[in-house]
């Protein structure tokens, strides 16, 4: 079928949805939505409509970004805006639907915001929420708004228009457009995408490949998963555009097996693309043909590295090789190969639709556009966010994230996962761009952003990351294999109270060796968490080594819990939580902890409502 006909039909159906004469309900059904109970909310919505004898439609959508509110439901009455409700239970969802659809009371006391034509009394506009206001959604433009399993929704919102435009241009021009946009790779390293395409385009070879890197191995990051679950076509369109620019006809998506829903949505998307003539021999009637294979990763972090990834696709152990030759020259099965990250490709499709100039209008001089982040950890509002480059860290953490939960003090933010570093709170004026984060000793990374508060120990954090990298080192390079292990051993000793001042010198020395002597990015960046914490949190190391104290209350041998008799009112909740019966005391009288019995599990500390239990 002709694409213009497909588009016409898609637009007609979308319009029909927008002007639906019945209620329209959207439920966020990404993996995390489901984890929070979205399936139940969906089932309830369906049942409640039936019970009220209302026809109406319920759509599954991806993540709108306010993950801390999951499960989320949006309700629209004909002609009205969507009204969003969060932290739902089945019961609450039912109450809302009855109240709004039957009695026309949208329950502003429960609503989070509205999106669309307003105003609505007592409910703020989505765009005005403190969490949303500083954001610019380019890669995430459709997430949470369309049904990711319906290609028509994507097309109706301008999707595949970028591809159609690209196919009318010369491949060189397409690569130049991306170059002009200033787009840099979002997978971590930040290499200019257009330039990478040109290398692959110019490399001699008949067979060429494009690979979408959806391995997302950084523990603490979920942008790519959400994007693939919420809007797979934006990535697939970008992949087609890249393939056309490079001159290749075959592509792979390498996706981690831990993301079953994203894989399913991709498979659905590929079938629908084929039906619309967007895959196969002659795409949109042009001479460009393309096919895509999905390859599931098998749980190795190092396979996110390009050469290891290709070794894994070829069916072997995913071990990196030295570069050059770069993949653009000699990649998959020895052929020129271009590898791009999921978010990079979602930006590509937007750039081809709206133009390089528009994209370059966002961001800073050297870092153009926006960046998505998975905001998590000890922050009030966790979420999937997209901000213009150059935004300050404090805007993200304090305004978007709403600061640290439970009135505790924010200590640091970790970006870039195991390859990145911890940036202390007094540097939160730092703008978020590739160069500034690198200068601070961290990296932009793929977008994991984990906020830490006073109860996070800055010696335990590098220890945690080193246990990860030591486990994930492929073992090829001796500095990486042994050096990560040695750093881990030292950090373990320090956390157990057996550290000595000399340990810090050894740590520094080993970290430099590992950085310099490793072949791939895993080893080269593995020391970053150690180096940044040594740089910014030396006093915590010293407290562990000299005073044998862990003030955060994380390293068990270096602290204990005590009950403050002044604050304790003897409610006894703590003693019911203690599994080893270490807490004694009469009702209504101050309790106390028998230190010999206590395993420092922390259950009492979490349970006490009066903050009577102290870390000492």
């Amino acid at each position, binding site marked *: 079928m002709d694409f213009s006909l497909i588009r016409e039909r898609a637009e007609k159906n979308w319009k029909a949805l927008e002007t639906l004469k019945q209620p329209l309900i959207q439920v966020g059904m990404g*993996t*995390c939505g*489901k*984890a*929070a109970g979205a399936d139940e909310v969906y089932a309830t919505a369906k049942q409640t409509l039936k019970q009220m004898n209302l026809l109406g439609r319920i759509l599954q959508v991806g993540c709108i970004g306010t*993950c*801390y509110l*999951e499960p989320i439901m949006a309700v629209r009455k004909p002609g009205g805006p969507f009204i969003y409700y969060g932290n739902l239970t089945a019961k609450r969802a039912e109450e809302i639907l009855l109240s709004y659809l039957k009695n026309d009371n949208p329950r502003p006391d429960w609503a989070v915001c509205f999106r669309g034509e307003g105003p609505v009394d007592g409910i703020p506009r989505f765009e005005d929420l403190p969490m949303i206001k500083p954001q610019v959604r380019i890669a995430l433009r459709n997430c949470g708004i369309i049904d990711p399993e319906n290609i028509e929704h994507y097309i109706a919102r301008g999707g595949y228009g970028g591809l159609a435009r690209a196919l009318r241009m010369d491949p060189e021009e397409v690569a130049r457009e991306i170059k002009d946009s200033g787009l840099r790779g979002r997978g971590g390293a930040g290499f200019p995408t257009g330039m990478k395409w040109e290398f692959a385009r110019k490399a001699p070879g008949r067979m060429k490949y494009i690979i979408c890197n959806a391995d*997302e*191995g*950084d*523990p*603490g*990051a*979920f942008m790519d*998963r*959400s994007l693939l679950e919420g809007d797979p076509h934006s990535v697939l369109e970008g992949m087609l555009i890249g393939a056309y620019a490079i001159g290749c006809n075959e592509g792979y998506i390498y996706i981690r*097996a*831990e*993301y*079953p829903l994203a894989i399913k949505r991709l498979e659905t998307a590929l079938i629908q693309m084929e039906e619309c003539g967007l895959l196969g021999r002659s795409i949109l009637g042009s001479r460009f043909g393309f096919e895509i294979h999905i*390859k*599931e*990763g*098998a*749980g*190795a*972090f190092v396979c996110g590295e390009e050469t290891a990834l290709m070794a*894994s*696709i*070829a*069916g*072997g*152990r*995913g071990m990196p090789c030295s570069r050059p030759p770069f993949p653009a020259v000699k990649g998959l099965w020895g052929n020129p190969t271009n590898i791009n990250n999921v978010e990079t490709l979602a930006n590509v499709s937007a750039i081809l639709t709206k133009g390089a100039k528009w994209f370059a209008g966002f961001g800073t001089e050297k870092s153009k556009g926006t960046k998505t982040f*998975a*905001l*998590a*950890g*000890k922050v009030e509002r*966790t*979420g*999937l966010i997209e901000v213009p480059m150059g935004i300050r860290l404090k805007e993200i953490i304090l305004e978007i994230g709403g600061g640290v939960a439970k009135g505790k003090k924010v200590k640091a933010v*970790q970006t870039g*996962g195991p390859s990145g570093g911890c940036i202390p709170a007094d540097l939160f004026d730092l703008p978020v761009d590739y160069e500034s984060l690198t200068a601070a000793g961290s990296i932009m990374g793929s977008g*994991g952003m*984990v906020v*830490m508060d006073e109860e*996070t120990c800055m010696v335990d*954090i590098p220890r*945690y*990351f080193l246990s*990860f990298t030591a486990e*994930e080192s*492929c073992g090829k390079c001796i500095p990486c294999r042994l050096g990560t292990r040695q750093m881990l051993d030292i950090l373990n000793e320090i956390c157990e109270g057996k550290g000595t001042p000399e340990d810090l010198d050894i740590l520094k020395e080993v970290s430099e060796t590992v950085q310099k002597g490793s072949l791939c990015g895993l080893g080269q960046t593995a020391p970053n968490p150690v180096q940044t914490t040594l740089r910014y949190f030396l006093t915590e190391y010293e407290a562990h080594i000299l005073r044998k104290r862990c003030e955060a209350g994380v390293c068990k041998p270096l602290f204990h819990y005590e009950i403050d008799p002044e604050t304790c009112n003897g409610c006894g909740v703590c003693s019911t939580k203690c*599994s080893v019966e270490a807490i004694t005391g009469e009702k209504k009288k101050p309790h106390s902890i028998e230190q010999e019995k206590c395993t420092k*599990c*922390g*259950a009492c500390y*979490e349970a006490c409502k009066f903050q009577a239990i102290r870390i000492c």
Partner: protein
Amino acid sequence: MEQAIYAELPEEGRSEIEDLFNEMRKEFKGRPEELIPMLQRAQRRLGFLPEQAMLEIARITRLSAARVFGTATFYAQFRFQPVGKYIVRVCRGTACHVKGSDRLLETIVGYLHAVPGQMTPDGLFTIETVACFGSCALAPVMVINDSVYGSLNRSRALKLLGEIRNSFPLPKLASLP
């Protein structure tokens, strides 16, 4: 505890493995790049990779057994020991770590009397840790088979596990060492 690294499939599973390989011979051409998908397919069906399955995959792909075993052991996804009916996977990613997943894991290990990678003696549970499930906004996260549970605390985790355990009448706590 010392254990043989690779396990054989018990007698009653033999016909299952034959069926599986009959299907796999039709689905796969036996090319080397199909090795990992074949291992994944076998594990999905059998729950783990018994020695016979890996040897059979070596035959189909005409790769050496060393290559097949070497590749399988490289990837964290593959298991070489039978698993319990319920696989309890606790996230050990960064966001979950700062939200106390180590203590959550400790509690679960204590409750089920098995360490990560191990099956409970009653064959009901296997505990595993995973680097990150990508649901970090809801940290800490635990996955039981295919169901993801977020924003967990210890008591809710134990309640979930307790409900499963209680739904099986026979092997009770008493049968544990």
